[in-house]
């Protein structure tokens, strides 16, 4: 183990930065050691399961690994404390006056380590690093899962023994025990096209304006919404119709639904151009800014609660009817046009005081359970949080 270097706050900033980088490196190595240790323990368990004669040796190995892992965890805790004290994890030292223009390296919430805080501004770095990191993490976990828990193998994943893994097309929750619906795609049922889904939703809900765009286009549009909202002297401009119903839908990653004066909802598709929704968020029509995206959260309580409930609805639609998840989700979203006018189906009032949240809210829970005849689903009822009897 390397000797502990005592870093006083009297040290010059360059030395502090160097020490911080060094500690971050050590932390990363410790984390890797821990991961390897977990691998070894799982392997030992597997071996002893397959080969009872080797179980004693496996037990010894496991105990040895356990000791090593414990030491690694203790070291990691020490390093973590040092990093925290030196302000790396919280960015606390960035505002210090005598930092010589240098900043402590910052560990950002998505795991990226940035040596100098201003580098974070460089285009694409943040997003790219988060996506890469997520991809690598998924690969590591999937490898581990495939190796040690093959009985949980998803039928659609490639069963060949090569090491490269196909990035699964969607995230599907493992609700494989539903008696009526199977998670396997029924090859006789064709997946509907995105354009058809949008057209049918548009006819079903004429009060809602639907538009689509690519992910990067959306972030520009979200920013422009912020500046439009600030200029309150103008009447709200007519929504720009970005949908290209005649053009190709291969790159579409964001669907925007706007019910004038009621809501703006963002649904993201993953992968782009598919009909698989992966996130949804509700906002007020007068909100704008870079936080407006399908994984963002509104500043208003009513929309925060509807978004939380929408997440559950999305998971339900994905697991019970993956082919039609997008159609169901969009229909369900459109039923919220009456969010501020429809009384609760239980207490018949519009506003109700939620005692636990200490807020006055309209009915924000609209049940999403599908009945077995899945057409003519109108999602017509609405409940206050306290009146809702569902526990989904």
């Amino acid at each position, binding site marked *: 183990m390397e000797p502990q270097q005592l870093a006083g706050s009297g040290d010059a900033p360059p030395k502090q930065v160097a020490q911080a980088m060094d500690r971050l490196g050590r932390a990363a190595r410790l984390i890797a050691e821990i991961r390897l240790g977990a691998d070894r323990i799982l392997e030992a368990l597997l071996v002893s399961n397959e080969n009872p004669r080797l179980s004693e040796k496996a037990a010894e190995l496991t105990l040895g690994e356990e000791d090593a892992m414990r030491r690694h965890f203790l070291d990691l805790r020490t390093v973590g404390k040092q990093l925290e004290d030196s302000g790396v994890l919280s960015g606390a030292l960035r505002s210090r006056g005598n930092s010589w223009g240098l900043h402590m390296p910052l560990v950002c919430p998505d795991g990226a380590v940035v040596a100098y805080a201003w580098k974070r501004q460089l285009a694409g770095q943040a997003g790219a690093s988060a996506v890469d990191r997520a991809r690598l993490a998924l690969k590591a976990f999937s490898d581990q899962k495939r190796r040690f828990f093959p009985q949980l193998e998803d039928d659609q994943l490639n069963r060949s023994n090569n090491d490269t893994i196909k990035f699964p097309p969607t995230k599907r929750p493992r609700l494989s025990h539903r008696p009526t619906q199977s998670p396997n795609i029924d090859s006789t049922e064709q997946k509907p096209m995105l354009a058809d889904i949008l057209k049918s939703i548009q006819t079903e809900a004429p009060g809602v304006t639907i538009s689509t765009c690519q992910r990067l286009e959306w972030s520009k549009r979200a920013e422009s919404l912020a500046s439009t909202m600030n200029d309150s002297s103008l009447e709200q401009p007519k929504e720009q119709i970005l949908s290209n119903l005649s053009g190709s839908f291969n790159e579409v990653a964001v669907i925007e639904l706007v019910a004038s*004066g009621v809501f703006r909802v963002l649904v993201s598709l993953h992968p782009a151009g598919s009909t698989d929704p992966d996130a949804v968020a509700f906002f007020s029509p*007068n909100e704008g800014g870079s936080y407006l995206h399908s994984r963002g959260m509104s500043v208003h309580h*009513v*929309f925060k609660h509807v978004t939380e409930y929408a997440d559950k609805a999305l998971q339900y639609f994905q697991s019970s009817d993956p082919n039609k998840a997008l159609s169901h989700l969009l229909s369900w979203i459109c039923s919220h046009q009456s969010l*501020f006018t429809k009384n609760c189906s239980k207490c018949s009032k519009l506003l109700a*005081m939620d005692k636990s*949240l200490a807020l*006055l809210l309209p009915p924000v829970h609209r049940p999403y359970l599908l009945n077995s005849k899945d057409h003519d689903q109108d999602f017509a009822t609405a409940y206050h949080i306290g009146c809702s009897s569902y526990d989904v």
Partner: protein
Amino acid sequence: MTVKWLMHFQPNQGTTLTSQVMAEACAVAESFPGVSRDGRWRSAMTFYRAVPRDQSLPAPSDLPRDLIGISLHDLPNEYLFVMRSQRLILRAHSSVQTVMDKLQSYKGRFFINFEGLQYKWGDFKLRIGKCLYNPNEALRGIVMEVEYLPLSSMDKSQRVMEEFYEIWREAVASKLLAGQFINTEVNFVEYGLGDSYTPQHTAVLYGMCVVQVIASSNKNQ
């Protein structure tokens, strides 16, 4: 801009309005769970009257004789004028008051200040304030402004605001205040204002509300 409703307190027949009522109204607001105080607020209103240049000539009939000027608490850089007879509203930069002083075509006849406490309650903002007649600081009335932050459409927020108004009235009645809050009803279409809420709507609301407050305070004196 987000939707606002404006109410004023109408004291019961035979009772006079005192500062105690203001304290009681604030206590009602604070009795709701989850309400948090959010500072103070202040708006000011000036009643202008036209100053004829030449006393011998009759005043031109198309010029308004009276003008209301309002400076709103949430728009410190702006000043709004309401011409009730012509149903016109003008939005200007706050420096127009200096211009008015220099021009002397309209002179401020009397002044009303609104000041009080502001509360945040979930997606609602409440402002309860005294309506004070300048310069002697006589209490003319009590107003309450309710703002619903998620919505800007008057039409879509109508039911929400109505229900809030009912909840508020019930709470006030249960705390036995000597009077009730009356909502200011305005036909915005007459002023050429649309469904999307703007500061002009606020100006018109205050204009109408003050007229009712003054009428009710004159009746009770």
